[in-house]
């Protein structure tokens, strides 16, 4: 067994989303069909399996069979943990998109510069208020009055939870991981299950002058 096999198994069983940003070497290892098969075979023996996000940007470990009540309870517990953070994450996605010149949303590989974000937030009252709301929703340093402190705290939270990877360890540049792909997959399912309309908003016709 290779070292990469061992690292892959350990990383996956730790509950991480493995992608080109977070674990480049292991991600490339999993892109090889033979390696992926050997990992899958091992995980099957312990009642688990490897799954990719829909955009194929990340790999993660799942239970092979959810009919097992213990596994189901485990998944339910995790579900309760994540669903509370969705609102904060959506607000964050909107905030970052507003600062992007092409209005691109965060995806795996997206680069974030703390200084650029901070400059945009400090220049805009609405972005500042959005930051307050995010800090409140994610329970991060929301009592602080300084935007810089709030932003840093949110970035730290997102790094700790595997959404971002700090580049060079300086804390000034971050790259988004495939955990966002997982979030989008989850949001997609919630939309379908709860009947939330995601169709393109229709252009409203202005009927009269205001």
């Amino acid at each position, binding site marked *: 067994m290779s070292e990469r096999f061992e690292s892959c*198994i*350990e990383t996956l*069983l*730790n*509950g991480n989303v493995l992608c080109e940003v977070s674990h480049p070497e292991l991600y490339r290892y999993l892109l090889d069909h033979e390696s992926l098969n050997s990992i899958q075979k091992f995980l099957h023996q312990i009642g*688990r399996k490897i*799954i990719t*996000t*829909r*955009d194929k940007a990340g790999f*993660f*470990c*799942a*239970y092979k069979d*959810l009919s097992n009540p213990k596994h189901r309870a*485990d*998944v*339910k*517990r*995790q*579900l309760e943990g994540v*669903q*509370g953070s*969705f*609102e904060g994450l*959506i*607000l964050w*996605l*909107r905030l970052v*998109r507003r600062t992007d010149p092409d*209005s*691109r*949303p965060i*995806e795996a590989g997206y680069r974030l510069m703390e200084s650029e974000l901070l400059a945009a937030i400090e220049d805009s009252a609405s972005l500042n208020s959005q930051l307050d709301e995010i800090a409140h929703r994610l329970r991060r340093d929301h009592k602080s009055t300084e935007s810089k402190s709030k932003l840093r705290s949110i970035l730290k939270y997102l790094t700790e939870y595997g959404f971002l990877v700090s580049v060079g360890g300086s804390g000034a540049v971050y790259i988004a991981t495939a955990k966002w792909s*997982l979030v*989008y*997959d*989850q*949001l*997609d*399912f*919630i*939309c379908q*299950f*709860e009947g*939330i*309309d*995601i*169709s*393109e*908003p229709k252009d409203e016709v202005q009927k009269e002058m205001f």
Partner: protein
Amino acid sequence: MSRKDEAKSATGALYRNISTIDDSCFMARGQIADIPENESAIKSLEKNNLAYFVDDAMGVQVHSTVRRLLNHVTKRYRLRETHQAFAGMIEELRHAIQNYQFAKNKSQEDKLLYQDQIHEFTLDIMSELTDTVQSFAHVVGNEFSTISSIDIRIRETTRCKNEIAKLNEVFSSLSVADIRDWAGADLMLERLLMKTLKSHVDKCLKELSTTAHRLLEMIAKLIKDKEVQRLNQLIDSFYTHYQKNPSYTPDLGSVIDLPPSFNLISSITINSRADIDSAMDEEVLSDIAISVMKNVQRNNINDKQDEEVEVTDGRGETIEGDIDTLEENVDFFFDALLNEESKVSELTALKAHELLEVDAEPEDWMLCLMEHYEAQKSELTGKIKLTLDEKIIMPFDGNHYVRDICFSRVSNG
């Protein structure tokens, strides 16, 4: 009317009514409104087979040949699937060549007729291919910018890419070997097919290949744009939903089949211990052990140095200690034997255990008595004699089982 007169009349009609024709072709999909102002133009075009009446609702339609001519001269390209047309043209050329080869040694007139046909078909293929290449270049240049739907743009671009693939397939029948076979030993055919046609086809296909590559890039970009659009819609829809329902939290408790995205395992940390019996790892393990011991010793020294011991002045104080009852009973036992006034001159351990109600097992009691006796041996020798009630437990005669110990006072007199 002669052929030339017909051609003159038709081009004259086009020339005189070009303004109406242009408007109809580029602004009304080739339709000419059947109104009095257009009456003379309609009459003139119909007379020369350049327009025809459809019905009262649609009016008069300009012939597609005229529209194609205008598109061609104004470089206004519309994508058409041409691979079948090319296949037909190549087939026509092949037939004409076969007929030419057949007529060559038989009839000079027929030979010239087919020779003209070969020239015409060859130049038609070349001209059509040039148009096709230019129309694809136009697609790449404009990227269907007038179409707003990303889905339609993806579909159209994919259609272009597929059409190029089909064209490549059609023109693969024009290989050097095939053309050489067609030309045979005829110098005219060889020059026309091998030099003129083949070089033009190769040049155009090369351009098409570059265009196809660019189209692939366009498709990839469009698909990316579509994904970005979808994600943005997803984010905005959720945001709106949260705004409308401030206390909203997704409730997936009733979901029976959870999707893979929610099937996340809880974290497992894999721990292992070293195999201390492994000869292979002996060296590594001993290094680790030495290093750990050094650390432990260092820590102990540090702990001792760091430990603060509180010292209290206990001088002059009386410290009271409780005497252990077992020890007290041992003292009673020997006091009873050593007291000369006592009537007891002999006492067994088990008897004393019973009399003193010793709170210990008989074996422990006997050991305590023996320990005391051994500790005080120098003092007690000559005063107390000790006899063991014992038996040897076979098979080894060195095993003695002591059942009781008898202590007896040595009489002085």
